[in-house]
């Protein structure tokens, strides 16, 4: 009897598999009625309902696999939307402080798929313009003008299976324009919107569950000119370690080594913030008055972050704060002997990441980046407009409103390292930025 009922329900389920949710509800009602009439026991009913649901899931999967190529089935989509209010206040060299209030939006959508197990292709589109590699914001206004969508990144990635040679070793070879794999505890050197262009070879070695090593190696193309014999390029080698010292203490550290070629004596790169030292006088080799870089930017940048899980939970004292970390970063341009250092120190408290309702994080960092410590085409564009020769404070508070949706408040209080030489104004031209964001990730 039960088997006949099961067959009946399965047949109906087979017909209705394509209208899944509503149909499942109808099967539930039917089975419940049979239980109420004493035809089925609750156990039989549970068996029928669960097995019917499993059959429906299987048929959906079979339909999907049969009709669509595997690389389409394997496509993973992700994205985020940000609505921002931004207040900028900056003292101008020749005038009083200017103020600006803006509403801005950012949309990013990314996709990746595997053509075969070891080869992946990814691409992303985002709001933004082709004239600013450090921002994907679009300011609202201009009589409702349409906003630009640009190619954010596009890359191919080859992850050869090394398990036959050395089980814990992994390798990823990436080429194209890709999300930056260089790890940094705070965006002092690299604006998070930057997508480097070139190739990378990233090695990983997992010694055990608590200790792993990585080495990110990149060759990036900074510019290409048809008449330029020495196009500016850079190499990066970033060895690092992830170490879970105890169940409650974790450590991450790395030392970036940057090597540049073709930057010194090259004309200022596109989208420079204009604070690196350039010279307009022609030197022995150049018969031009174009502004060229006076120095190279070969540099070393050690960085660390140490995190404590349940940091205040000892001796019965429990504040409910789940995470606390301290981080620091330093850079030295060894091609210069002065104006060549930068550093940042900071801390995060709250949840390690804000991704769910009620989660929160408060972070603070202080940054100090001298004029020629680093190329001024890379730093965080919100920190003194992405210039070098700048210092200041950055405070961030994030709060999870729902799963994958959060509020973000950020404050920058920054200034130039050098005072104005103008007799009427010897200030450091301070600038403040306040940002209030609503961010949704999907």
């Amino acid at each position, binding site marked *: 009897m039960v088997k006949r009922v099961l067959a009946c329900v399965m047949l109906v389920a087979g017909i209705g598999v394509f209208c899944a949710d509503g149909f499942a509800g109808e099967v539930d009602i039917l089975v419940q009625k049979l239980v109420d009439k004493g035809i089925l*026991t*609750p*156990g*039989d*009913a*549970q*068996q029928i*309902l*669960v*097995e019917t*649901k*499993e*059959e429906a*899931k*299987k048929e*959906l*999967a*079979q339909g*999907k*696999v*049969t009709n669509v190529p*595997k690389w389409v*089935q394997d496509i993973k989509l992700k994205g985020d939307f940000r609505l921002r209010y931004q207040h900028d206040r900056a003292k101008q060299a020749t005038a009083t402080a200017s103020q600006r209030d803006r509403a801005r939006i950012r949309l990013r959508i990314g996709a990746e798929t595997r053509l075969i197990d070891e080869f992946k292709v990814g691409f992303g589109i985002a709001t933004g313009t082709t004239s600013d590699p450090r921002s994907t914001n679009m300011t609202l206004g201009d009589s409702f003008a349409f906003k630009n969508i640009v190619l954010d990144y596009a890359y191919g990635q080859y992850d050869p299976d090394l398990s036959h040679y050395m089980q814990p070793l992994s390798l990823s070879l990436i080429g194209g324009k890709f999300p930056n794999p260089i790890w940094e505890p705070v965006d002092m050197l690299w604006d998070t919107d930057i997508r480097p262009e070139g190739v990378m070879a990233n090695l990983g070695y997992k010694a055990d569950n608590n200790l792993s090593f990585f080495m990110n190696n990149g060759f990036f193309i900074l510019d290409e000119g048809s008449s330029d014999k020495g196009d500016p390029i850079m190499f990066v080698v970033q060895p690092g370690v992830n170490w879970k010292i105890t*169940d409650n203490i974790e450590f991450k550290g790395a030392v970036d080594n940057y090597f540049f070629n073709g930057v010194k004596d090259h004309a200022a790169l596109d989208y420079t913030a204009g604070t690196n030292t350039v010279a307009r006088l022609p030197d022995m080799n150049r018969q031009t008055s174009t502004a060229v870089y006076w120095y190279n930017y070969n540099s070393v940048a050690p960085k660390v972050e140490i995190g404590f899980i*349940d940091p205040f*939970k000892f001796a019965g004292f*429990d504040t*409910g704060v789940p995470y606390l970390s301290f981080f620091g970063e330093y850079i030295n341009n060894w091609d210069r002997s002065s104006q060549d250092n930068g550093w940042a120190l900071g801390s995060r408290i709250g949840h390690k990441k804000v991704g769910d309702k009620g989660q929160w994080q408060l972070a603070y960092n202080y940054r100090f980046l001298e004029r020629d410590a680093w190329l001024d085409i890379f730093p965080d564009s919100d920190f003194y407009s992405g210039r070098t020769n700048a210092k200041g404070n950055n405070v961030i508070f994030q709060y999870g409103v729902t799963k994958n949706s959060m509020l973000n408040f950020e404050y920058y209080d920054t200034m130039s390292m050098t005072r104005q030489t103008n007799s009427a104004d010897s200030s450091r031209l301070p600038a403040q930025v306040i940002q209030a964001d609503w961010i949704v990730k999907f």
Partner: protein
Amino acid sequence: MKKLRVLQAIMFAAAIVAAAGAVSAAEKVVVEGSTTVLPIAQKAAEVFMDNNGDIDISVRGGGSGVGIASLLDGSCDIADSSRAMKDAEYEKAAAKKKDPKAHVVAMDGIVVVVNNSNGISELSKKQVKDIYTGAASDWSAVGGQAGKIVVVSRDSSSGTFEAFGELVLKGAKVRPDALMQASNQAIASIVAKTPGAIGYVGLGYLTDSVKPLKIDGVVPGRDTVLSGKYPVSRPLFMYTNGSPKGAVKEFIDFVTGPEGQKIVDEEGFVALK
């Protein structure tokens, strides 16, 4: 003529050898997967083989994911699983031209228990999660009288711990000072002796020595587990490749039949019949 006789003799001998081989080769069924379902499968295999000498059932654990992967690879005949197959696993099966078929063999219900002297009679699933993760460490935080909560849990190798983690904790970690116990009986014993304690046991291990709590307003019991209303419950599966046939069908029928369901009860799970 002589040659024909010799040929006949050879063919006769070959037929006898083949028949003997057929008689002596027991049909083999390999069962692999969930450690939660393992005790049911092991006990059922023992009893089943006692009554069916020509069928050899080999049972091993490894986890639900391992069992399902083996079923899709063809290295086992039945995959034990304490969870439903994931969409990705069904898609993998379709790509490999496999046809996994689910058989619900039992229900697993976990009862949250406190000391009989505790005034609390009901908690929400969220409150239980808060207690086990350390977000709530005093009974006053969940509506009880002030007093430290003593958290008692199964050790991480048990299937009950795995089920509790999946159904209640949703992947969060049990607070580090929880008392980890190796059996349902040990949990019941500690909770019975400790006024501020909270623990959890399989429905089949519930005794009068501890007080069962309603979860989200639902009383834990056979009826509420079977109806799917009790929130800390889940079905347990055996998956086969296609509709079972031969010895595999006989074994599945045995497990879902009266004798198998008696074993389900004896092992502390909720029988379907």
